[in-house]
């Protein structure tokens, strides 16, 4: 999976285009590919969680299947994950 600044734990939001990299101490463009960045640490977002399942025909919307006893909960890939976050494989 391609890595981008926007998906990195070190990237604090600034606006919809930019973030602040806490590791490098500078402004970054969120959509900058970061495959070669040694400081990259994946954010805990629903989209990166093993309980996340994409909705059919939806690129960014999904459901959480953490609890099999209750109906699926609507979430979206960018949502900040809860304490039950488990990285997907």
């Amino acid at each position, binding site marked *: 999976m391609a890595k981008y600044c926007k998906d990195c734990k070190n990237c604090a939001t600034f*606006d919809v*285009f930019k973030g602040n990299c806490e590791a490098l101490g500078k402004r970054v*463009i*969120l959509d900058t590919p970061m495959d070669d960045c040694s400081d990259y640490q994946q954010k805990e977002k629903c989209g990166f969680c093993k309980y996340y399942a994409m909705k059919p025909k939806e690129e960014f*919307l999904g459901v959480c299947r953490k609890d099999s006893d209750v109906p699926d909960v*609507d979430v*979206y890939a960018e949502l*900040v994950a809860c304490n039950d976050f488990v990285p997907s494989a």
Partner: protein
Amino acid sequence: MAVEKEKLSGMRLSFQYGTPPAELTQREIKREPTLRAKKLLDDYYEAKVSLDTEFPYWYTKTWRENEGQNPIIRRSLALKSAYEHLTPMIPSQELLAMQKTRFVRGSFMMPWTANRFALSDEEHMAHEAEAASLKSLEEITVIAEGGGNVTESAGNVLSISKRFGIRKEDYAALIEDCRYWKNKSSEDMGFMWGAMHPKYDEYLNIKKAVLVHVDLETSIRHGRNVVNYQYPLQIGFNGMIQECKDKIDANLNEGCVDKIAFWKGAINVIEGVKTWIKNYAKEAKRLAGIAKDNKAQQELLEMSERLEWISENPPRTFMEALQLCWTCHIAVTNEIQGSGFSPGRLGQVLYPFWKKDMEEGRITREQTIEALECMRVKFTGIDLAMAVGTIGLLAGSTFNNLCVGGVKPDGTSAENELEELIIESAISCATPQPTLTVLYDGKLSDKFIHKAIECNKTGTGYPAWVNNRIAMEYCLRNFRDEGITLEDARAWTIGGCLEIQPGALVNGEFGAGSYSSTGASFINAPKVLELVLFDGYDRRTKTQVFPPHGLELKTFEEVMTAWQKYMHELVVVLEEMYNIRASAFLEHDNPMFYSALMADCLETGLHMDKGGSRYNKCMTTWITGQVNLANSLASIKKNVFDDKNFTMDELKDTLINNFGYESALETGKFSMVEQIREDDKFAKIHAQCVAAPKYGNDDPYVDEIYKQVVEDWRDYVSEVKDFFGRSYVPCQLSVATHGPLGQACLASADGRLAGLTLADGAQSPYPGTDLNGPYAVLNSATVIDHSDYQNTQLNMKIHPSAIKGLTGAEKLKELIKAYMDKGGYHIQFNIVDTKMLKDAQANPQNYRDLMVRVAGFTQYWVELSKPIQDEIIARTEYEEV
């Protein structure tokens, strides 16, 4: 010159603004902010207006999970959840923490309030008639292209309303929420409920013709009010929660379920705000752990400790009190889709904390200025996610008014050292928010007045000057039925642009306690006369808006009779419809945290929508372009009836043909300057129209007409009762509606061409028509009794050289005093050189930080639309006062 470092699909991303020519921007007073504030301000300049989805996602999710709950409890749980899930973000060097979203300049939609602009395509299908009328407003609303506006989609960012950027991956979630709220949002319900009015079709035609600018009422109902900080300042959030618990215990056996629900709901929402603050405290602590230097680490630890303390307790220091006030303020803006939430008399509210800190050596004046500067940047970062039409109306402003001066509850001058520092911070850190207003009173010292004039000389457009005595008179008269005290009247302040709000003392301290409303807005005054001339028919949209009046208009009296008939009809239909549509907000969109703060809601157990505030007569109706209306009527009286220069039919033919000029849409110029005449056939009539008497010259011929039309409108406004059973209140203020409303008008008999921006404010002459000097304007402006209105508004443009030095300052002081002595309510000044404004229009990249006064508010030049820029350039510039 500007340098574009990075580009993404044409969107300029880098923060690099150029330098304007020095000879154009010289200021007698110019100071720099502290380094900290400068850094935060530079961040702001760089940031694009960004939409977030966290709040709407969690609100909607929790709302859906609580179906069947008591509506107040359900709303409070949704709000609590939303506050608790906001991701904290603290920029480096921040002194005051917390903002609306995790973006520097961010906002979010509240689809439970208004969802139509995000679903506009679907709404076009489902509500074709209404969508068409909305579109007509959108078509004529021009959004500025500069500054932080995201005017086009770029890369993975979509543009909404030509202003907000939202990431594609977030947009999907937002639209999902918007779809849920379809036919459930206050806006949708308001549209549906509106159909119960027998004249609903007429109302739709009124909207379609842009006879009113009603976009505001469909999406924003609260605002133009002051946030009351006194309860958390005096007893802290824990104290407020305990008070609610005590009230519940004491009232459980009284059968008042609504009150129990409110107190319980207040507890929920206060708990949500507490968690939000604690999350910021944790984030500050985390950042302290990775801080690269000791100073930053120490500051972050102090911030964390401050936040942790105020999340539970009343503040002990000035900095804690300032942080708490800011937190409450931003929490209110997150809860309610409101415009014009103001800090009011913050210098009075915070003074006891500051004085104690100064006496005990905990803070210096320099530290105070730095903190106040940081507060200014925070206020400027507030944004409101709205539809195009509303953004055009508001010109992107959020109208947070901070007032200084006035008198104390005991009637003595209220000026203090902290207020002087508030003015000083507004000089050194020039930002549009919070705008500054001096409550002018004869008891203010010369020193204080000169300090405020020093601020005027920076050219930022603030402070505005308002008449303390007129405002108190307004309060004592309007809130007499609600038992207003003299002390509360003296503690009055401004909520929004200039709107008078009574004070509400809480244990003797300055507080706020009035209901808030954006009101029924904005009547297009000259358009009403246009419909009179064409017998109720709007030529622009080819719509019969009103039934034909049936008068032949053979005399001036007949013209006035027809105008009165149409204006009366318009006001009544507008206000009755507003009652119906606004009442949809009462269903599930009630202010909870806002109410918990407001005096006396917790005491009465009633939230604001139930009339729990101390004062409630606050529903207003607004008007724009009354000066153009008066000038046009004067021209008709003079040219058609008195001097018989031309007939009414000749005038109508001339107006249809725009006096032989190209249209504003063709020329792209929205003032009378540099217009192009295509056909000389109408030149003579145009010259006669232009030469007719004009308001602003102390000429009774036209001033008497102005007085009559304004007072007729005032009387119609108060005929209708609001949903509290109190009469509506007239409010004279244009905000930025004089741009789009002007575009909906044909040429008018005053010589104004079709589509041109109308006169700004309420008492401002039409640009270029006031020829007898500023004192003549003051005389024209005071033919009406200003205390009859929630506010009035007069703008003046003065060349900086006219008020230079001590002599110049004295001249300005005398001008202000003269207006106040004559009974004027408000006056404000653009102290700018028109040449600079023209250069700024041609080279906006050099003027990122240039601010101008529009109509009751200051805004960045580059974030104003061209019709408004043109109007400001065209305003008469006085070289002598």
